[in-house]
């Protein structure tokens, strides 16, 4: 069994128990042990990077220190947390002067960033530690060719120079993992384009227009659902459809489902264990199709 320090972040535990439940159940079933550490904080995502990049790097590094002290690599569910932490980890490993600068700050909290651990997104863990074949062997309920519009979110892929997750223009990992469940990962227009989520709260009209594009493009490609990895993309597209209905007078009923939920369902986890009532856009259509 491979063990990881679970970095849960803020949005998932506060808003999306369906994500946390499905991720914990699926990963555990596949032989990954998730260890909850004390004293973690926010990962210091873009809103905090916007306030002060130096502070954000220090906060991200502080959290990595906790995994270093526990002698564990770190696993993230949220794509935003993955970006903040993996970016800081790479930058500090590659730039000794930056590491020194951040360690001076961390000394105030009694920490030192050493740079001897990895930050991984759970898709990397599925791909590399579990493996596609092992996932396929564990599928109890294949997803019946469900047409899935994969939407990884920006921060799984970019900036690729630091994250090194997949080809930023032609990624395959997420699609491969969707197809391993017996679903079809379909093409749709502007698949890799942003959901606009980070503009919520500052320019809601612009954010909603960008989110609407994503929904319309998946709808026009006859997707049964959009599958997400990032809780912020989820919120933007799921709650977003309620706002699209009031603002644009349009109704798409496009289910937004985290990949971890699809994975759990195909591994045979009972739907009633997954807090599926936390979806604003009901996912009954999808449940019927996968039977």
């Amino acid at each position, binding site marked *: 069994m491979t063990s990881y320090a679970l970095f*849960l972040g*803020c*949005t998932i*535990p*506060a*808003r999306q*128990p369906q994500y*946390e*439940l499905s991720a*914990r159940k699926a990963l555990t079933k596949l032989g990954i042990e998730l260890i*909850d550490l*004390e*004293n*973690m*904080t*926010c990962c210091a995502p*873009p*809103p*905090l*990077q*916007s*306030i*002060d*990049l*130096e*502070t954000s*790097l*220090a*906060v991200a590094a*502080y959290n990595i220190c*906790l995994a270093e002290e526990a002698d564990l690599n770190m696993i993230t569910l949220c794509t935003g947390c993955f970006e903040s932490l993996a970016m800081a980890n790479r930058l500090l490993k590659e730039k000794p002067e930056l590491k020194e600068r951040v360690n001076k*700050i*961390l000394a*105030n*909290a*009694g*920490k030192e960033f050493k740079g001897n651990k990895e930050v991984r997104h759970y898709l990397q863990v599925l791909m590399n530690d579990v493996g596609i074949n092992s996932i396929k062997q564990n599928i109890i309920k294949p997803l019946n060719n469900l047409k899935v519009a994969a939407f990884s979110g*920006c*921060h799984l892929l*970019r*900036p*690729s120079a630091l994250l090194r997750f997949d080809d*930023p*223009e032609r990624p395959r990992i997420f699609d491969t993992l969707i197809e391993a469940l017996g679903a079809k990962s379909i093409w749709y227009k502007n698949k*890799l*384009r*942003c959901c*606009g*989520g*980070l*503009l919520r709260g*500052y*320019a809601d009209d*612009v*954010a909603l*227009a*960008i989110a609407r*594009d994503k929904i319309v493009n998946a709808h026009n490609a006859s997707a049964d659902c959009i599958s997400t990895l990032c809780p912020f993309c989820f919120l933007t597209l799921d709650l977003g459809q309620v706002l699209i209905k009031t603002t644009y007078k349009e109704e798409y009923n496009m289910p937004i489902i985290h990949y971890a939920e699809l994975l759990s369902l195909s591994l045979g986890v009972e739907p009633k*264990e997954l*807090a599926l009532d936390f979806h604003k856009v009901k996912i009954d259509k999808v449940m019927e199709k996968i039977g």
Partner: protein
Amino acid sequence: MAEEKPEKPSTVDFAREITSKLGGETITYCYQCGTCASSCPVAKTTDRYNPRQILRLALLGQRGEVLTEDAIWLCASCYNCQERCPQKVEIADVIYALRNIAISEGNIPAIYTEFATGLMSEGRIVPISKFLEKKRADYGLPPLKPTGIEALKKILSATGFDKIMFKKGESQ
């Protein structure tokens, strides 16, 4: 008799200021090809934002315009521009550097104060409600471990983050 002219700030001063900031180092490589603007989901949606224009204005030394107008806050941090820039300008990071300067001068959009307040009081930018705590327990999720708020406060005070955000003695 000639009146002394007020010294005109040099166009390079602002560029130097930006390149000395974390994230801003690469701005001067820009040759204005516009790949950023044509890769930008926000620029496709609204004419309030154009990354090529922000870089041009900044390199022309239009400090006031860049830092006080709304454009720099409209970057969605999707990094598409940065990925495609043929000059390897780290555009999304340059925008962070510009936001960092604007915020250090007190130009802080309300939403950022909200995030910072959450971080400084609970160590999380999204607080956890009693409702969710109960739901978590009902579904058998483990109770959340305490955050490292004390260590975090020390870090925020070492970088001056707490002072940047709450300058005028507003206690948090």
